[in-house]
C-alpha cells in the first residue's frame, strides 16, 4: 500500500459506517437459489431471512423465498433443533423442494446448534420419507462476508452431493457471484466450444425468470442436482476468482473436486476485460481442442476496435472501484487496459489477497499502482475519494450518495443495484461484457462533459 493509503482499521478505529459488505448467509442463499428445486433455508430467527429477502428482491425484482426456523426466545435458549426439523418438514410438505440448503445465522452459530448432527437425526427419524437432499453450510457472519458465504456454500454443495462414480462429458464451472446475464452468456460461450457445462450456481432463470402463467412455488431453472452429483466425473473445472484461497480440499469447490476426484482445475480471474477474457478463451480452447468460434473472435475484434475509438475519452481518467474482491480485481484489470487510472480499489472483505491481485492486474499498464484497501466501509472510501478526486466510480449502487456528493458519474456494476432497473441483466463477463461496460464508461464521460459544458456540445 502506498503511504497515503486508507487508514487501516486499528484498535482505535472500531465502528463501521455504511458497510461495503453483507453478511455470510446472504451469499449462501443465492447459491441455493441457483440449484434446481432449491429452497434456501436460514436456521435462525425470522428477521434475518426477511431482511435478506427484501434486499435481494430489490435487486433482482423476482420472488426470493427464504424459509426460516423462526426461532423465538425459548429456542434461542434451549436450542433450535426442533424448529429446524419442523421447518424442514414444512418446506418439504408445501414446496416440493428438489434440494434444501440450510445456512446458519449468527444466532444459531452463537448458541452452538450442531446443524450437521441435527440433520443426521432428522434423516434417521424420517427415513421413511422420500426426502430431498438437504445440504448445510456454516455461515457465521461475525467471521466473513457474503462472498465468503457464497464460496463456502458452493463448496458445501459439491462436498455433500458430488460423487466420482461415473465419468461425464460436461465440464464444471464455478463462476462466483456474477449476474444472471453473465451466467447466460457463459452458457453460450461453453456451447460455442461444443462443451456442455454444469454451472454452479445457476440462478440465471430462478432470479431472472419469465412472466409466467401460474405462480411457481419454486421458479424453474437452476443447476440440476443430478448434474451436481456428477461433477466428480467431469473432465475439467473452471473456477473464477482472483482472491480465492489456494485450491485444495479445504478451500473451494474446484479445489475439492481436484483433490478428491482428480478433476483438472482451471483457476482464473473473473473474465472481465480483454486479457482475462483471453485467458478464459485460451483455456476453453485447450479443454475443448477447438479454436475460438468466429463469433467470439469477432466480438474480440470489435472490442479492440472500440478500445481505439474510445481511448481518448477515458484515457487518464481517474476512477475509484469498490465492491466484492474478485469483481473489483477484474474491473481494475479492465480499466487499466483502456487507460483509465484506478486510483483506489476498495473492498469490504478481508481475504488478504486483494492487493497482490490488483497489482498483478495493473502491472505495466498504469503510471502508478492504485491504492488498495480491504476491510473498509464507505466512510473510509469517502474519506479517501474526496482527496483523490476521481472522475468516476465503478461499483454497486451503495456508492450513490458519495458520487452525488462529488458530482461524478457512478457506473453501476455487480450487486446490489437498488436504484436502477435491470441490475440482474448487466453483463460483465467476456468480450461482450467488456464491450458493454466500455460503452457505458465512455458514454458516462461524454455525458459528464456535456452536462458540465457552458456551450453544450453536440458532436463529440
Amino acid at each position, binding site marked *: 500500500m502506498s503511504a497515503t493509503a486508507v487508514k487501516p482499521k486499528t484498535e*482505535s478505529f472500531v465502528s463501521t459506517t455504511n458497510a461495503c459488505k453483507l453478511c455470510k448467509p446472504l451469499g449462501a442463499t443465492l447459491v441455493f437459489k441457483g440449484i434446481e428445486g432449491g429452497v434456501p433455508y436460514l436456521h435462525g430467527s*425470522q428477521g*434475518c431471512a426477511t431482511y435478506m429477502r427484501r434486499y435481494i428482491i430489490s435487486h433482482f425484482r423476482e420472488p426470493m423465498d427464504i424459509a426460516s426456523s423462526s426461532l423465538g426466545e425459548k429456542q434461542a435458549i434451549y436450542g433450535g433443533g426442533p424448529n429446524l426439523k419442523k421447518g424442514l418438514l414444512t418446506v418439504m410438505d408445501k414446496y416440493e423442494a428438489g434440494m434444501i440448503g440450510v445456512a446458519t445465522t*449468527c444466532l444459531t452459530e452463537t448458541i452452538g446448534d450442531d446443524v450437521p448432527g441435527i440433520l443426521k437425526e432428522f434423516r434417521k427419524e424420517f427415513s421413511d420419507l422420500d426426502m430431498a437432499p438437504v445440504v448445510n453450510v456454516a455461515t457465521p457472519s461475525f467471521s466473513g462476508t457474503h462472498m465468503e458465504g457464497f464460496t463456502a456454500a458452493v463448496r458445501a454443495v459439491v462436498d455433500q452431493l458430488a460423487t466420482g462414480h461415473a465419468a461425464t462429458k460436461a465440464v464444471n464451472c464455478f463462476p462466483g457471484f456474477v449476474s444472471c446475464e453473465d451466467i447466460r452468456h457463459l452458457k453460450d460461450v461453453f456451447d460455442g466450444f461444443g462443451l456442455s457445462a454444469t454451472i454452479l450456481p445457476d440462478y440465471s432463470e430462478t432470479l431472472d425468470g419469465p412472466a409466467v402463467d401460474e405462480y411457481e412455488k419454486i421458479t424453474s431453472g437452476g443447476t440440476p442436482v443430478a448434474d451436481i452429483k456428477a461433477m466428480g466425473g467431469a473432465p475439467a473445472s473452471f473456477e473464477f476468482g482472483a482472491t480465492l484461497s489456494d485450491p485444495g480440499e479445504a478451500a473451494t469447490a474446484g479445489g475439492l473436486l481436484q483433490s478428491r476426484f482428480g478433476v483438472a482445475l482451471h483457476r482464473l480471474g473473473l473474465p472481465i476485460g480483454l486479457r482475462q477474457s483471453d485467458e478464459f478463451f485460451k483455456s476453453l480452447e485447450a479443454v475443448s481442442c477447438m479454436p475460438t468460434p468466429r463469433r467470439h473472435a469477432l466480438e474480440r475484434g470489435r472490442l479492440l476496435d472500440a478500445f481505439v475509438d474510445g481511448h481518448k475519452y477515458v484515457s487518464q481518467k481517474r476512477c475509484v472501484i469498490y465492491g466484492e474482491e474478485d469483481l473489483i480485481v477484474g474491473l481494475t484489470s479492465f480499466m487499466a487496459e483502456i487507460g483509465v487510472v484506478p486510483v483506489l480499489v476498495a473492498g469490504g472483505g478481508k481475504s488478504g489477497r486483494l492487493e497482490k491481485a490488483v497489482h498483478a492486474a495493473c502491472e505495466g499498464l498504469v503510471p502508478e499502482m492504485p491504492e488498495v484497501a480491504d476491510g473498509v466501509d464507505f466512510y473510509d472510501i469517502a474519506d479517501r475519494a474526496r482527496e483523490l478526486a476521481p472522475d468516476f466510480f465503478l461499483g454497486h449502487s451503495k456508492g450513490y450518495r458519495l458520487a452525488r456528493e462529488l458530482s461524478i458519474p457512478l457506473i453501476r456494476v455487480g450487486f446490489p443495484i437498488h436504484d436502477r432497473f435491470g441490475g440482474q441483466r448487466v453483463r460483465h463477463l467476456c468480450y461482450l461484457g467488456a464491450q458493454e461496460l466500455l460503452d457505458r464508461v465512455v458514454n458516462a464521460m461524454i455525458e459528464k462533459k456535456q452536462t458540465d459544458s457552458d456551450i453544450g456540445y453536440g458532436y463529440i
Partner: protein
Amino acid sequence: MSDIIFEERKDQIHVTGEGPFKLACNRDSLAGAVSQRACVFCGSRVVLYPIADALHLVHGPIGCAAYTWDIRGALSSGPELHRLSFSTDLQEKDVIFGGEKKLEAALTELIDRHEPKAAFVYSTCIVGIIGDDLAAVCKKVSAQKGIPVIPVQSEGFKGNKREGYLAACKAMFTLMGTGDTSDIPPISLNILGDFNLAGEIWIIREYFERMGIRVVANITGDGRVGDIAKAHGAALNVVQCSGSTMDLAKMMRETYGTPSVKVSYFGIEDMAEALYTVARFFKGLDPDMLARTQALVKEELAVLYPKLARFRQDLEGKKAAIYVGGAFKAFSLIKAFRHLGMSVVIAGSQTGTPEDYEELASICDPGTIIVDDANPLELSAFLKEKDVDIFVGGVKERPIAYKLGVGFCDHNHERKEALEGFVGMYNFALEVHRTVMSPVWRFVPRRAGKTLAAGISDLPKECSI
C-alpha cells in the same frame, strides 16, 4: 387454494361471511413457512430511525445494519444522520469475549465524529445471547459525552415487530421530560406514528398549522431529539393508528397526563376526521377552529373530487388485495378503494391484533379473505383465486403480484410517493390507475395465454414452406 395453506395456519385465515369470525394471531411464525415478517429489531428500527439528528448504532454483526441502511425514505428537512448505517460489526473474538469494549469505543468514536444530539444503541439477536450489558455501556458513555445514550432492547428473536415498537417507545420515553416547555402555547400537539416516508409529515403539519395549531414534536418522521425532549409540554398527542407509537402515548398519558386521539391520514374520510377530531379537542380554547377546519377540508375536496371522478370511471368494479404491516392501514385503504369504485377482496397484515382483525372483518364485504402473517404461497393462491386487479403491499409482496400479472401499489416503508392527506389520496388514485390500467397486463401469459409457438404444441400442422 386449500392445498397451499399450512395445516398449522388454518385458523389464521378467515373468509368473511363463512361462519362466526374467529382468527388466531399474534403467534410466532411457523418454522419453514416463508413469513413476510421481520423481527423485533426491525420494529424498533423503523420507529426510531427517522430521528434525524440522533446517532443510530446497531450493536451486532454486520448484516442487521447493512440491510437496513437507508432502505426507508424517512425524509428530513435538516440533518441526515439517520441515513447512515452504523454498526459495531461484531467479529468472532467479540462474540467469544464479549462486545462491550468495542461498543464503548465505537460509540465514543462516532459521537466525537458526528456530534449527535443523542445516540440510540440497538441490540440484535447475538447481543442478547452473549449478554453484553448495553445499559451499563450507554450510561457510561452518556456521562462522558453529555448526551443521552439510550439502549434499545430489540433482540430480534424476542417476538415480532410489535415488541420492537414497544422497545422503541420505551427508549424515546427516556428522552421526554428533559426539554424546556416554557414557549409551548396551549394549542399545541405532537404528531405520533408518522415517519415522513415521502415528505408526508410536511403535508400533515401544514394542515395543522392552517388550523392554528403549533406542532411541537414529529414522532418520529423528520424528528429531532430536542423536540421529543419537550414533547410532554404539548396539549395533545395525535397518534396515527399504526400501533407503533401507541405505547408512547400511553406512557405520556400516565406520566404527564397528555391526552391522545387516534387518527389516520390515509383516504378522504379518515383524513378529514383526523382534522375534525383535533379541532373538536381544541374547541374550548378556540371556538372558531372547527369552522376553519371545515373550510380547509372543503377547499381541499373541491380540488380533489373532480380528479377522482375521472379515475373512477376506469376503475369501477375492479378488485384489490391488501397485505400490509399493521392492520390499521388496511381500514383506511378499504375506504379509499371504495372512493375509486373498487372493492377489497383480500385483507391481511403481518402483526394485527384480535381487535384489529375483528374490525377489519366487520368493514369488509362478505367473501373477503382475512389473513394474519401470510407467506408467498398463500398470497399467490389468494390473488389467483380472487382474480384481483391490484395488490397493495411492500417490496417483498411486489414480485408476487408482478409474476401473476397483477398491478401493484407500494404502501410500505419504501414508498417514494406521498400517500397521506388529500393530496396523498390523489397520488394513491393516480398510482392505482396507472398500474391497473396499464396495457402490459394484456400481454402477460396468465391473461393472454401463450402466443408464441416456442416449445408448444400449437404449431400449424402443415408448414407453408
